[in-house]
Each structure stands twice: as C-alpha cells, then as structure tokens.
C-alpha cells in the first residue's frame, strides 16, 4: 500500500495505524500534529486510525518563524 507522506510517496506494509506510522518514524510522543486528507486526526485517536491506500498524510511540527 502507498500513501503520500509530507508530499512524498511512501510504501507501507499492510494495514498501519497512525500511531504505528509515528513509531516507525521515531516520532511517537513528539510534539507533532497529524492531518490525513486535509482533516486533523487528533492525538487521542492516533492508535485507532488506520491509514488507507492513497491517503495524504501530513506530519508537522513547530519551527522558528515570525
């Protein structure tokens, strides 16, 4: 299965939840926010939200800005 992760194609092995994706990226527990197909996925449901083929996933964080 393929998703679009931060604008780039990413293959996934079978069904994966957002929590599992974050763990595989070393981002679990970090200060990030997740959007799937332009809708926020609240932190509280990362563990139960499964990704589907073609999902457009954005993972963002805070950086310096004015």
């Amino acid at each position: 299965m393929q998703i679009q992760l931060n604008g780039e194609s990413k293959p996934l092995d079978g069904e994966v939840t957002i929590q599992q994706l974050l763990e595989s990226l070393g981002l679990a527990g970090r200060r990030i926010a997740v959007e799937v197909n332009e809708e926020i996925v609240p932190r509280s449901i990362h563990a139960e939200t499964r990704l589907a083929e073609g999902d457009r996933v954005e993972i963002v964080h805070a950086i310096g800005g004015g």
Partner: protein
Amino acid sequence: MTQTLSDQPFVVAGRPFSSRLLVGTGKYQDFDETAAAIDASGAEIVTFAVRRTNLGQDASAPNLLDVISPQRYTLLPNTAGCYTAKDAVRTCKLARELLDGHNLVKLEVLGDDTTLYPNVVETLKAAEALLADGFDVMVYTSDDPIVAKELERLGCCAIMPLGSLIGSGHGLQNPHNTRLIVEQAEVPVLVDAGIGTASDAAMAMELGCDAVLMNTAIAHARQPVLMAQAMKQAVEAGRQAYLAGRMPRRQSADPSSPFAGRING
C-alpha cells in the same frame, strides 16, 4: 518625587500581559541564541511557524517547543507561507492540534513572495472561517484603515498592520495610517513587520499602538541579545511617552531658562 507609572496590562483575547513586545523565533543561528534573545526581550507572547517534520532526521533532536516552553510563554502560531485562505485555515487547525487546543493564532495570508504583502481578500475570508471555528485571531494586514475596521468588525482580537515589508527593517513607512488605525480601533493594534531598530519600536508605541511584534530586527542584529534588550526598553519608553503625552510642537524657539534676572538685562 518619583511618579508611579500607572499602566494597564496589555490585554488580548481576554488574557493580560505585562510586556508589550511580541517576538518571533525565526532566523536565529541556533536554539541557544533564540532562547537567550527571547529571554532578554521580556516577551511573553512568542510566534512560531508550522512546517512539515523532516522525516529521516534524528527524531530526538531538540524541537523549538522544547526551547520555547508552552508553560512559560503564550505561543502564537503563524500562517506564514500561506497564500490562500484555505491553507491558512488548515495551518491554524494543525497548530491547534500541535498545542493541545490552544486557539490563539496569528493569521497572515500573503500576496506574493517578493513583497510578502498581505492579500487582504484572502485574509478576510480566512478570518471569517477561523472565527467561526472558535479561534482567537490576531491578524496581519495592510495599513488600510478600512480593511482594518472590517477585520475588527468580523471579530479579530488584534489588528496588526505592517510598518513596512516583512523583514525589510524600513520602519514605519506610513505612520499617519498607523495612527488612523489606532484611533478608530476598539481592539489592540500592533505594528507587525518592518521594525528595523529601537527607534522604530518606540515610534510605533508613541503613536498609540498597544504593542509591537518583531523578529528580524532582533535576530539579524549583530548582537541579537543586546538588541532584544534595546527593543524591550524602546517599547517601554515609547509606551511611557505615549501615556505621558508629548509636548506641543512650536514653530519658534522657547527658552528653557527664564529671561528674567539675566546679568545683561
């Protein structure tokens, strides 16, 4: 005799602050410099940007929010880099999730990447959508008093006209418009963008602005921490001068020493 300074706190979206200087976190050399400059500025409200996480990098590397703690500062996520209302609204929603429901945002929708001038049509659309979704919106806009009034009418909690182009350091290019916006507003007015040095910040405050927001003037000073201190003092001095009320301007000289009793009289 020392006269006690009596000033009201700076209140935005119902939250009181003692500092009238808001600072950004961009363009610093590293997080140590960011933290030191922001500490020296005395700012209580600190802006940041929302960007894609760099995947594949060391996930344990420090994060801006580890340095600029949400426990110490009121964080103000911005929508810098957004050119449409839709992108700005998405960015604000991501920021709210990032900060566990915190709903104070700095809205900026830009027109082009040469001037970074605000696109007021998209800004108005985004403000309406964000306000309907429960955000408290501090809005970056042009120095057009009619647009400023419309943003206030929609319900924005602070109006933030540019002094001059973002990052230009050209100071207040149209102080008369800034004053018009200040005089008509019933919500706080902040000069956001264009401040170059301490006198620019003092001038904004002397015009009656409620606060000043800046980033590059501190971050790109030769000594950012020293400039942060200068800006803190300039904002305080400008505010006090505004409260004190400046002397009237005269066309001719008026001696400070009395004429009476001169030895040549």
